[in-house]
C-alpha cells in the first residue's frame, strides 16, 4: 500500500469528476459515489497507518520538470506523520460525508455539495501526502478554493458570499507570504523536497537569519490557513457554510493543515537561531488560544462559539509545537479533529432540529434529542480536557510541555483552559438545560425539536466513542504509543508532572462550575457582570475591534487606493491612450490620400522601390 499511496487521493478525485459531470444520474444523486470514494480512501489510509506503525516508510518521487541543473522532483511520502494524518482525514471525512446525506437532504444543489466535498477530500489527502513544498502549496490553494466554494455554497445568501470572499482573501495574504518563503527556499537550496531542504539545513548551507525569515514566511501561510492572530477574522464568518463543511474543513482538517505544515517543516523552525521562529509560533498560538477563548465567552451563535473554540484549540496546537511539544501538538490535532468534528456535527443536528443558530433561543434539548445531547456532552468534556476523555491527554501534554519550556505560555494556556470550560459550559447549559425557548423566530409551526435521523446520529455515536477512547493512545498509563510513534528526534516530551496535571484538571472543572453558577443556577446574573465590566464586554463582543481596524485600515484605505488608481487609469492612462488614438486617427486621415485603393498604384510604387534599390546598389 505504501508504494502506491498516490492512489488514495485519486479515489475522491475520481468521485469528484464523476459527481461533477453525472451527479444527478448517479446513485444517491452522487452522494453514494462520493461516500464510496472517501470510505475507500479511509480504508487505504488505515492500511497505510497500520503498515507505517509496523515500520514501513516510503517516498515515491519522480521528476516533474527537468529544468536544467535544478530538476523539479516531486513525490509522496509515507511516514508516521502523514500516515496518521491520512487515517484521520479519511475517517473523519468519511463520517462527515455520510452525515451530510442526512443534513443536506432536500437541498436543490445536493450533487454540487458532494462534488465539492470530494474535491476537498482529494486536495486534503494530497496535501497530507506531499513530500515537497510545491505539492503542499498546490494542495494548499486547492483546499483554499474548496473552502471558498463550500463557505459560499449557499451563495444566494449575500452573507455567505461575503464570508466566502473574506475567507479566501484573508487566507490569500498568508498564502502569499508562504509562496515567497517557498521561492526563497528554492532559490537557496534548488529543491523543494523536505528531505533535501532539511539536508541543506543540516549541512549548514541554509541557516542564520535567512532561515528564520523563511520559516516565518512559511508560517505566515499556516497563520492564514489555521486562523491564527492576526489572520483569524475569516473563521467565524466561515460558519455561513453548511455545518458538515464547518465540521470537516473549518474544524477537523483544513484549518489543521497549518499546524500540519509547521510539524512537517519542523526542522525549519527548530533550527532557526535561538528558536526565534518557534518562539514566534508559540506566542502566536498562545495569543490566539487566549483571545479566541475570550471572544467565545460572549458569543451567542452556536456555530461561532465552536469556531472560536477551534481557533483557540489551533492556538493550543501551535503553542504545543512552539514549546517543543511536537508529539503533543500533533496529538492534540488528531484528538481535536475527532471531538471538534463531533461538536460541529452535533451542533448541526441541533440546528437541523431548531432552525436557529442562537443558543439563547434553544434550551431543554437534552430531553428531546438524547443522542445529540450525550454525544455533544462527550465532545464538550473532551474539549475541556476532563479526564478520561481524549482532549485531556492531548491538552495536558501541551500544558506540560509549556510548563517545562516557558511559564508565561503555560499561564496563558491555563487561563485559556478555564475559559474553554466556561464557554462550553455556557453553551451546554443554554442549549440543553431548562425549557425550550422557541427556536427560530416565527418558527412556531416547527413544533418541538425532534431527534435527527440515523444517518446523522450514527456518525455522532462513532465519533463520540472515538472521542472517549482515542486519548488513551497517548496516555502515559498505556505507555504513550502515540508519542513513540510520532516524535521528532531531539525533541523529547518532558516527564509527567502530577502537580501541573491536577492543576489543569482543577482549572477545567472550575470553568464548568463557573459556567453553571452563571448560566444555570444564576448565582450571579450574567447581566450584572456585563454591566459591571461594560468596557471589557464591548471589547469582546466587538472581537477586539480587529475586524473594524481591518475595515478601516485595509478596506477603506484600499478603497481610497482603488479610487486613486481608478482616477489615474481613467484620466492619465486612458487619456494617453485616447491621445495616441486621436493622433493616429488624425495622421491616418491626413495620410489616407496616399491610399488610392488601386492596386496599380501600389504595384507602381513597389516597382519604383525596386528601381531605387537596384540603382543604389549599382551606383554605390
Amino acid at each position: 500500500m505504501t508504494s502506491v499511496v498516490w492512489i488514495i487521493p485519486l479515489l475522491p478525485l475520481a468521485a469528484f469528476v464523476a459527481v461533477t459531470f453525472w451527479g444527478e444520474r448517479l446513485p444517491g444523486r452522487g452522494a453514494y459515489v462520493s461516500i464510496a470514494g472517501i470510505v475507500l480512501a479511509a480504508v487505504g489510509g488505515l492500511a497505510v497507518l497500520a503498515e507505517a506503525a509496523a515500520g514501513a516508510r516510503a517516498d515515491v518521487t519522480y521528476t516533474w520538470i527537468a529544468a536544467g541543473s535544478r530538476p523539479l522532483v516531486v513525490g509522496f511520502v509515507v511516514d508516521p506523520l502523514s500516515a496518521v494524518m491520512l487515517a484521520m482525514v479519511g475517517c473523519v471525512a468519511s463520517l462527515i460525508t455520510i452525515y451530510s446525506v442526512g443534513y443536506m437532504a432536500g437541498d436543490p444543489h445536493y450533487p454540487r455539495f458532494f462534488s465539492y466535498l470530494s474535491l476537498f477530500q482529494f486536495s486534503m489527502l494530497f496535501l497530507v501526502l506531499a513530500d515537497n513544498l510545491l505539492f503542499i502549496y498546490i494542495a494548499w490553494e486547492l483546499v483554499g478554493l474548496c473552502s471558498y466554494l463550500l463557505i459560499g455554497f449557499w451563495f444566494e445568501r449575500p452573507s455567505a458570499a461575503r464570508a466566502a470572499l473574506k475567507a479566501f482573501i484573508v487566507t490569500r495574504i498568508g498564502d502569499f507570504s508562504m509562496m515567497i518563503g517557498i521561492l526563497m527556499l528554492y532559490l537557496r537550496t534548488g529543491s523543494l523536497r523536505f528531505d533535501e531542504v532539511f539536508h541543506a539545513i543540516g549541512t549548514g548551507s541554509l541557516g542564520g537569519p535567512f532561515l528564520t525569515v523563511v520559516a516565518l514566511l512559511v508560517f505566515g501561510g499556516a497563520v492564514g490557513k489555521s486562523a491564527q492572530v492576526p489572520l483569524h477574522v475569516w473563521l467565524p464568518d466561515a460558519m455561513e457554510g453548511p455545518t458538515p463543511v464547518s465540521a470537516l474543513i473549518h474544524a477537523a482538517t483544513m484549518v489543521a493543515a497549518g499546524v500540519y505544515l509547521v510539524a512537517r517543516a519542523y526542522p525549519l523552525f527548530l533550527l532557526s537561531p535561538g528558536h526565534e521562529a518557534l518562539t514566534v509560533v508559540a506566542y502566536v498560538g498562545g495569543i490566539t488560544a487566549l483571545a479566541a477563548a475570550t471572544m467565545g465567552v460572549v458569543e451567542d451563535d452556536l456555530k461561532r462559539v465552536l469556531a472560536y473554540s477551534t481557533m483557540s484549540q489551533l492556538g493550543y496546537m501551535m503553542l504545543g509545537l512552539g514549546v517543543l511539544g511536537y508529539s503533543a501538538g500533533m496529538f492534540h490535532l488528531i484528538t481535536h479533529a475527532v471531538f471538534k468534528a463531533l461538536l460541529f456535527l452535533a451542533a448541526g443536528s441541533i440546528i437541523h432540529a431548531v432552525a436557529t443558530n442562537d443558543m439563547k433561543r434553544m434550551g431543554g434539548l437534552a430531553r428531546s434529542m438524547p443522542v445529540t445531547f450525550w454525544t455533544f456532552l462527550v465532545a464538550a468534556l473532551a474539549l475541556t480536557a476532563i479526564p478520561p476523555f481524549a482532549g485531556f491527554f492531548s491538552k495536558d501534554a501541551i500544558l506540560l510541555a509549556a510548563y517545562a519550556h516557558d511559564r508565561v505560555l503555560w499561564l496563558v494556556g491555563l487561563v485559556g483552559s478555564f475559559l474553554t470550560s466556561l464557554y462550553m459550559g455556557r453553551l451546554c447549559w443554554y442549549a440543553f438545560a431548562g425549557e425550550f425557548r422557541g427556536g427560530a423566530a416565527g418558527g412556531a409551526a416547527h413544533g418541538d425539536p425532534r431527534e435527527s435521523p440515523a444517518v446523522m446520529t450514527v456518525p455522532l455515536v462513532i465519533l463520540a466513542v472515538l472521542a472517549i477512547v482515542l486519548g488513551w493512545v497517548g496516555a502515559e498509563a498505556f505507555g504513550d504509543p502515540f508519542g513513540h510513534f510520532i516524535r521528532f528526534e531531539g525533541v523529547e516530551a518532558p516527564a509527567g508532572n502530577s502537580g501541573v496535571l491536577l492543576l489543569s484538571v482543577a482549572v477545567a472543572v472550575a470553568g464548568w462550575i463557573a459556567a453553571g453558577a452563571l448560566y444555570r443556577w444564576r448565582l450571579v446574573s450574567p447581566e450584572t457582570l456585563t454591566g459591571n465590566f461594560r468596557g471589557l464586554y464591548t471589547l469582546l463582543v466587538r472581537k477586539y475591534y480587529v475586524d473594524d481596524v481591518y475595515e478601516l485600515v485595509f478596506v477603506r484605505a484600499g478603497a481610497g487606493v482603488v479610487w486613486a488608481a481608478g482616477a489615474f487609469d481613467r484620466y492619465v492612462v486612458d487619456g494617453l491612450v485616447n491621445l495616441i488614438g486621436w493622433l493616429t486617427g488624425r495622421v491616418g486621415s491626413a495620410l489616407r490620400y496616399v491610399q488610392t485603393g488601386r492596386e496599380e498604384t501600389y504595384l507602381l510604387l513597389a516597382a519604383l522601390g525596386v528601381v531605387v534599390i537596384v540603382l543604389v546598389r549599382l551606383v554605390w
Partner: protein
Amino acid sequence: MITLTHYLVLSALLFALGLYAALSRRNAVAMLMGIELMLNAANINLVAFNKYAAPGAIQGQIFALIVITLAACEAAVGLALILAAYRRFETTYVDDLNLMKW
C-alpha cells in the same frame, strides 16, 4: 555562343513587359496576364541559372515547377475572384471596383 547573360537579358525584357501590363492595364484579366509574364521571366532565370550556375543540382527546375504550380493556383483563384466580382459588379475593370475606396 549563347551565355547566361543572353537568357538574363531575355528574362529582364519579358519581366518589364509583364510589369508594364500589370501597371498600365485596367482590366483585371489583363493584369493577371502581366503577372503570368513576370512569373515566366522568373522561371527563365531559374532554369538558366540551373543550367549555367549549378548544373550539378536540379534545384532550379524544381523551383520552376513549383512556380508553375503556384501560378496555376494563382490563376485559378484570381479568375474565380474576377468572376465573382463580375457577377456582383458587372465589370472586370479594376478602377470601377472602388467600393472600399475612401
